[in-house]
């Protein structure tokens, strides 16, 4: 029993870490964007592919380098 409960807790912790890292690195940005578009413009709204989306994201940073600037 305790073994199974421990494994469950470990699994949950692992999932949480994975979620946290994906959020922190913005790896989840594409899914978030698609969910946002679908929620606001309907489930059939056209969305860019992931490749296109990631390109636009880095290009936006190109245009204004103050975004995502880090400090001393």
């Amino acid at each position, binding site marked *: 029993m305790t073994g199974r409960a421990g494994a469950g807790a470990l699994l949950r912790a692992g999932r949480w870490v994975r979620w946290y890292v994906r*959020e922190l690195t913005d790896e989840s940005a594409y899914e*978030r964007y698609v969910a946002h578009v679908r929620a606001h413009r309907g489930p059939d709204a056209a969305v860019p592919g992931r490749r296109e989306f990631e390109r636009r994201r880095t290009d936006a940073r190109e245009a204004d380098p103050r975004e995502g*600037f880090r400090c001393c």
Partner: protein
Amino acid sequence: MSTARNVSRISPRSVVVWTAVALVGAVGWAMLALARGEEVSAAWMVAAALGSYAIGYRFYSRFIAQRVLRVDKHRATPAERLDNGIDFHPTDRRVLLGHHFAAIAGAGPLVGPVLAAQMGYLPGTIWIVAGVILAGAVQDMVTLFFSMRRDGKSLGQMAREEIGPVGGAAALLAVFAIMIILLAVLALVVVNALAESPWGTFSIGMTVPIALFMGFYLRVLRPGRVTEVSLIGIALLLLALVSGRWVAESSWAGAFTLEPGTLVIWLLVYSFIASILPVWTLLAPRDYLSTFMKIGTIGLLAVGVVITVPTLKMDGITDFAGVGDGPVFAGSLFPFVFITIACGALSGFHALISSGTTPKMIQKETQVRMIGYGSMLMESFVAIMAMVAACIIDPGLYFSMNAPAGVIGDTVQSASEAVRSFGYSISPEQLAAAAKAVEEQTLLSRTGGAPTLAIGVSEIFSQVVGGAGMKAFWYHFAIMFEALFILTALDAGTRVGRFMLQDMLGNVHRSFRRVSWWPGLLFSSAVVVALWGYFLWVGVHEPLGGINQLFPLFGIANQLLAAVALAVCTTLLVKSGRLKWAWVTGVPLVWDAVVTLTASWQKVFSTDPKVGFFQQRADYQEAIEQGKVIAPAKNMDDMHTVVTNSTVDGVLSALFAILVVVVLVDAGRTCVRAARHPREATLHEAPYVPSQLTAPAGLFATAEEKSELAAASAGGGGTPDGGGPGGGSGAHRPGGGDG
């Protein structure tokens, strides 16, 4: 509801817990302050810091949030109102805390405390802890709040709109000048860490192809898969680190053993090319690498300090604190400790982050306390660990590493003698052995803080993993960790400087406004690199020691930016009818202005040639006219270099001081007018919109917040938004109501 909270706030259990926390902090301070002539455990420093942070966070930040700012959990944040799924989106508070911390904490909190350790551990530690609680964290939190109320406007925009065009222009010019000095000093730290070190140079050099590979992977092979490519990158990084030793021991060593002057050229060429390349090739992947390395190493260091509990070998207060003739930086305790330690106590640069990306992502107004104040406390703790790392190494070694070559000479014998004249002792054999233990040719005059920190880190880490045999590895690990994010900062900072320059030049020639206009881009990048490159070149060839001369300028510049941010905050408090609370940012502002202006005054007018730039210039000029050479200058060329450099540095100190005064006078004028005619004060706040989101304010949801979350998810039938698989303490918004 609120009465129930008030009752629970003074529950006996809470009283007991917070009394205990206060006692831990107080005992820590007592042990640090009262120890005389014996070695003190670093555990007391950690206890004093953590106890004080806990009290500051629990009571002072809560007071600021609730009474001064009056954060409103029912008011929608820009992230909620303007949610576009890209840059504006309500982000889980724990994720945003990580984001914000990674953005504010860089090399600054690691370098300043190491240099300030020349006055002993006590002055620096007191300033780091008291400064962050009463000034630094307050600045970050209040700036974040006001920028959030203005849809994430930048500090420069707020200064222009809320203070006036003159103060705004001075603030903008100040940011640009500060950026140049910052980049030069950071680059100087890297040069001093990598000079004559084939191991370090090779492993840092390898980060370029690693980053290029990661960029290609993310752009072409598997777009957006950041975690996997970062893991691959870190593995390659460690490989580069290990192979650095093989290279240093092989016949290639000569190719990677570079003089400081050569490294400067390489750094300038690298930064220029990196800043004009697309973001995806180098900058973005390096950012991921350095963020992972930064968070990982800082975490490891905290664990290492707690496990090994090292003892502090440095004195609490050294003789240099009173006399002000220390070899690391000149000047007495007041004001120069408060200038040398900026990041970690009060850093103006944070205001740029707090008024940039973070306010566009915050879920709830109530979270400014945790994100703004909390992140800054974490950075302050990084500074405390840097202080620990610098103070656990032998003071004799510390001074041999941090005094300029002009003072201690370039042999272990001369250094040993010089250290004895400072009142410490280390034998030439010990100095040679210390360098050998980390497989470096020499540790003499490795100024800039990074090598000293790396020695401290290798001391701590090798006690946990690997023993003495791993010292060299951990030393180069720490060097790489610092150099990695400084190189990223050089690239990113050059881009920001270029962007500002393009904006300014846009007033002269319209094409400059188009950031992608190729000639304008090349020209502006070249100008920015040339500007900081000049100071870097000067710093490397400065007979009096580059860090010694330039670091005070960097500190003054950073604190000047803090004065601008605190002036904006104070003006906004007054204009928004919070006059009686204006002291919350007003007192730190006055303190900061007094410190910065005193330091600038001394740097310009002091008659001590070690402190005052113009006195230094006059002395050397007079000697040149008489045909004499003053040590540490070796010949007439050195003499002329000193004259030129002290003139430039002196003019710059004066310019910084004038800019602060302009901003302060303009802010004072606006405050007086707003205080006299409160009705006429115009605020540029975004209008009130009720919030649909429910989210906890702090790291852990309170019982009340949990029931609110449960009610929100049951009532609206909504989906968890960014709550993560943990569910429970994330945020909830109702169905699809806010189209």
